């Protein structure tokens, strides 16, 4: 029978191979699923891994969807390295979008381009404030951050609904629940004319470098991670666990809020009830698949963006529900966690009679 045997030291090779192995497992399950649904598996696969690369427009869309995933994923990676379980990035993203919209709605015909900076800062602050609630309740009342951050996602959704159905509804919008379309001055500058990819993608890629420096070259980043890996050692060294908690939540909340601001002032250009598109949850998968490493997250955010675009293409061209994306996202994280076992254990074959009483 097969048995798991603990490795003397975690395998570095497996830690990088595991995401690829998990992707392979997900693809195989995907092929079977396409066949079961009566679709050509090769064509299904092409929707996810070939079509999203064809042409400048497709590549631009890939970057547009990767932008929020990358920004949020970086913040969450820092958070999880500190062993703080913020899973409410979706709510922090929504608050960022709301705060950025609040600034954008103050713009008039004469407003300068500086307002984009103000709007992004407001977005980051909005996400931070939402995450600060989680930090406060954990710090002061020891309330579980998983449940609090998640409950705040539902609260944020309702707040968004209140604003777009109520005070912020566009009076000339035929009663649709949405704000006015943002003025030209408040929009994130695009990188190429005719393509939706904007400065947000550049900011997200620059953030990869910044997070790498903070995590691996700065003392504060080191302190944060020691607290996550070995709380007792961190206490002994005099590193404050409270500071780690607040840093982790404020940084991850701020990044999610910033992503919300880029999203609402970039591709969307107005606040609607459809702003929460699940990026905050998908970014959790992005963070884990990217090994909580900034460079890894750059790749995994692009991979997750492929999943989104593939799901949309499978809907429009193969007539499959778009929710296929969610199925594959969940499967990917599941297979990753299973494959990660191979980092710490090796699989050994042992004949059954040699292991009496094995349960």
């Amino acid at each position, binding site marked *: 029978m097969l048995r798991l045997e*603990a490795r003397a030291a975690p395998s570095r090779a497996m830690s990088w191979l595991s995401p690829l192995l998990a992707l392979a497992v997900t693809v195989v399950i995907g092929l079977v699923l396409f066949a079961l649904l009566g679709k050509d598996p090769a064509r299904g696969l092409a929707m996810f891994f070939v079509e999203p690369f064809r042409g400048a427009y497709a590549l631009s869309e890939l970057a547009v969807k990767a932008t929020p995933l990358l920004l949020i994923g970086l913040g969450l990676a820092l958070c999880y390295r500190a062993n703080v379980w913020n899973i409410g990035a979706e709510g922090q993203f929504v608050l960022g979008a709301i705060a950025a919209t609040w600034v954008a709605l103050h713009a008039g015909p004469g407003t300068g381009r500086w307002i984009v900076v103000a709007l992004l800062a407001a977005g980051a602050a909005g996400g931070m404030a939402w995450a600060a609630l989680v930090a406060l309740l954990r710090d002061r009342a020891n309330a579980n951050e998983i449940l609090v951050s998640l409950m705040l996602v539902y609260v944020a959704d309702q707040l968004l609904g209140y604003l777009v159905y109520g005070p912020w509804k566009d009076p000339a919008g035929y009663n649709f629940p949405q704000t006015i379309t943002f003025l030209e001055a408040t929009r994130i500058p695009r990188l190429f004319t005719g393509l939706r990819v904007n400065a947000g993608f550049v900011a997200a890629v620059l953030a990869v470098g910044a997070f790498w420096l903070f995590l691996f070259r700065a003392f504060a980043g080191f302190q944060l991670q020691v607290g996550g890996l070995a709380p007792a050692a961190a206490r002994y060294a005099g590193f404050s666990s409270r500071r780690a908690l607040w840093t982790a939540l404020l940084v991850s909340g701020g990044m999610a809020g910033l992503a919300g601001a880029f999203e609402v002032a970039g591709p969307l250009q107005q606040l609607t009830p459809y702003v929460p598109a699940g990026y905050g949850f998908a970014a959790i998968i992005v963070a884990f698949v990217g090994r909580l490493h900034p460079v890894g997250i750059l790749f995994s955010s692009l991979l997750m963006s492929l999943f989104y675009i593939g799901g949309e293409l499978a809907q429009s061209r193969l007539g499959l529900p778009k929710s296929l994306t969610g199925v594959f996202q969940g499967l990917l994280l599941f297979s990753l966690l299973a494959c990660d076992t191979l980092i710490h254990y090796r699989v050994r074959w042992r004949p059954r009679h040699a292991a009496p009483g094995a349960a």
Partner: protein
Amino acid sequence: MDAYALLVAATLNAGTVLAIAGLGLLVNERAGIVNLGAEGIMLVAAIAGFACAVHTGSEWLGFGAGALAGAAMAGALGVLVIWFNTNQYATGLALSLFGGGLSAFVGIGYVQERLPARPHFALPGLADLPFLGTALFRQHPLVYGAMALAAGLAWFLARTRAGRVLRAVGESPESAHALGYPVRRIRLAAVLAGGALCGVAGAYLSVVYTPLWVEGMVAGKGWIALALTTFATWRPGRVLLGAYLFGGVTMLQFHLQAEGVQVPSQWLTMLPYLSTIAVLALISRNPAWIRANMPASLGKPFFPGN
């Protein structure tokens, strides 16, 4: 007067979903396993139960399908967490995300479906009592089932040998292993039972409570049920009490709207989530309270040496 009787009845009905799921998660956690996949399990069970009820016309078969789907989903988590030693939080989260996607994918064909009208249930004799009849004795049998489950579970955990073994596994898997108990199988059994109960709760939601399939219809009830186990400090009776409390908060919004209170509906919809946060913070403030009943090995992996 009658409006209040209906409010009590609706509260018990709404609380039943949370109670069944919360009691299932309590079984999980008493064995040391946190199941953050509850939301996804309930969603998959909701569509499985609803689809089964649509095709067979039987709500009880629907509950059965929900229980099976719930146990299957939880089983995947159990195998990964117990045998592959994966992180319990991450695995549960994966299950929730997967369940959300899978239920939406399968459910797309059932969005327009309706279930045939169900005969109203009434306890003979008691149902005609003034006020109490409407408030308490015209409920779906599962409402009473949830109450019986809480009582049964309290008895099981405190008074039976199997219940004590389950708690031992959650308190100290090392000691239970040393005494010769198959810790991992007991944990898997607890996870399967908890998943099945979450499944029944999900199916009750889509087959009886709503009764419709809407994408994402569990709307955080799985997470609230998880908060309930902490709120209840891992005691079955208090899970039931907490479930009715949250059920009441949910119903309050409809009651206030019916009374003509001029508050935007979104603020009222926030109430259950905000009260979950508030209650969680209040209970967690007192460490002694939490520690008294919290299974000591909760969330920690156990890997018996070779």
